[in-house]
């Protein structure tokens, strides 16, 4: 194996084992799984309440468990037409309606919390090694780029495991708490959303690792990571709201450079949109990481 690839792989493995030893990985997995379980429980409860109110309004017996009425409504032709109208594209709406409600909720949830947890857990990964000086034991053994890429890959693998585990937690919770639950369809849809959330998270991981290479203080790096993430969200929101020229065009162009600008494409069920969004998000992650590397490659360690 080429020395560079071998070193990237060595650093990736070390990053994983170090996370396990330091219990960082356990904290990460617990955070993701707990988040998924609690959110799913709230979702099931709210859904049950809404269904019971609906059942009361139409004069039918209230169901003991959640999911029955929604499943029936999901199959209702008029409801489907309403959703098609709201989405504005019948094919997309049909695809979305093929997705079980719990999976849709999980998708929304994981897209919401993944960036937050990524910044929280990863923005200090390089800076803390600069801060403690432990980076100095490695930089005469491998290139700075190999080390950074290895750290990035290690964090990306941890994120994938965490998202799949949170999907599993949501799936088990739904299976236990919902009356009408299609295990196969839910498992497939939740797994797909976990992968999509991972791709979305990879872009934020690039941001976290980029900031971590620029800022030597772990706490400051995490804080700046959050600030930049908020700025990215503001750009995406403004790109949606602002209609005055030339601001709209400028904001739309800027929106292409932030992960939020590709979120909806990644959500869409068709392979073309999701594929293009995937390429953009992976490229953005790499670009943010490399932007940090420009500083790291020349910094005094």
């Amino acid at each position, binding site marked *: 194996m080429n020395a560079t690839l071998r070193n990237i792989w*060595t650093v990736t493995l070390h990053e994983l084992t*170090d996370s396990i030893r330091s219990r960082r990985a356990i904290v990460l997995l617990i955070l993701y799984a707990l988040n998924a379980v609690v959110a799913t429980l709230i979702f099931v409860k709210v859904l049950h309440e809404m269904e019971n109110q609906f059942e009361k309004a139409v004069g039918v017996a209230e169901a003991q468990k959640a999911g029955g009425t929604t499943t029936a409504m999901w199959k209702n032709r008029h409801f489907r037409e309403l959703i098609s109208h709201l989405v504005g594209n019948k094919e997309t709406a049909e695809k979305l309606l093929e997705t079980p409600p719990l999976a849709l909720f999980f998708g929304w949830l994981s897209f919401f919390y993944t960036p937050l947890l990524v910044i929280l857990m990863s923005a200090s990964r390089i800076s803390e090694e600069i801060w403690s000086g432990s980076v100095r*034991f490695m*930089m005469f*053994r491998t290139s700075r780029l190999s080390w950074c890429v290895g750290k990035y890959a290690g964090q990306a693998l941890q994120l994938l495991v965490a998202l799949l585990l949170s999907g599993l937690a949501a799936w088990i919770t739904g299976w236990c708490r919902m009356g009408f639950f299609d295990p196969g369809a839910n498992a497939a849809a939740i797994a797909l959303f976990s992968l999509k959330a991972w791709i979305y998270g990879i872009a934020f991981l690039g941001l976290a690792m980029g900031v971590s290479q620029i800022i030597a203080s772990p706490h400051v790096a995490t804080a700046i990571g959050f600030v930049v993430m908020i700025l990215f969200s503001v750009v995406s929101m403004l790109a949606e709201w602002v209609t005055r020229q030339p601001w709209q065009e400028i904001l739309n162009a800027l929106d292409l450079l932030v992960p939020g600008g590709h979120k909806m494409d990644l959500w869409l069920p068709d392979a073309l949109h999701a594929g293009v969004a995937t390429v953009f998000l992976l490229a953005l992650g790499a670009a943010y990481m490399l932007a940090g590397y420009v500083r790291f490659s020349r910094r005094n360690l």
Partner: protein
Amino acid sequence: MNAALELKGVVKTYGRRRALDGLDLAVPRGSIFGLVGSNGAGKTTALAVTVGLLCRDAGTVNLLGEGTFDPLRHAGRVTLLPQDSRLPLHARAEDLLWFYGRLQGLTEGTLRESIDEVLEWVHLNDRRRSPVRTLSHGMMRRLTIAQAFLGQPELVLLDEPMSGLDPREAARIRAILKRRHDAQTVVISSHNLHELETLCDGAAFIEAGRLVRQDNMDTLTRRSRRVTYFLEPGGRALPMEELKQALPGATWEQTPDGAELTVKFFDETARAAEVNARALAVLLGHGIGVLEIRRGSNLESEYFSVTDAHAAPVAPST
């Protein structure tokens, strides 16, 4: 000279401050070489620049005759014990060495043998499975020394290697350094000049980021040109004429209290043993008690005499 490390006109600035101000240095291959200098003289900076931890502003670095440090070319061949750097606390000692060894390209078999060897050297074999955070300060220091010798590197840079070590472990490390294989070059930055004097073949005095003097240890400490006799106090008058006749061409110096007598000989061919034989014959023949004999000066005295002009003035105490 076949140099393992050569720095020419290296400049490194931190803001307005010049940590290295055109530093020149040439470390002979296969030697143990000491870097001596006051705090902030630039020793640590020089070592960090050598392995690319710090980016230099000017000058050239030539490592093993192959140019500037390149991780792909020099990984595993040049290692560093950095000063004030913390090892990752959660890793186990053995796993950490394994990780470092793999990064520097050692194969599994070689690495396993090398880990056993260096852990044995630093007396940490019984703690190999312990997480770094459970090791004492001295043990962590020994582990950092172990990592620097992993895989028999050609050039080892040690920044204050003995700080924090107990006397027994320090002596053990000194013995290990002396037993290193012939082709290995070791550069040691230290404030312990006695230690450097006993360990090193050569040394460089660095002050204010510049080389003040560099030479082999014999020349630096004038071992081949000076012998000092420590005499019994209150003894008899010294037979100076007889001594001068015994060693023609040598000059004699005596301290006012008569306790130290130094002979300086400029003839390169004169051997210390021969000088001793002649001088002692005269001294003992006159019943003068000789308490101790020291060959040469010592590194500390030479360092002070050479660098006094460069050292920062000491602020008066209030």
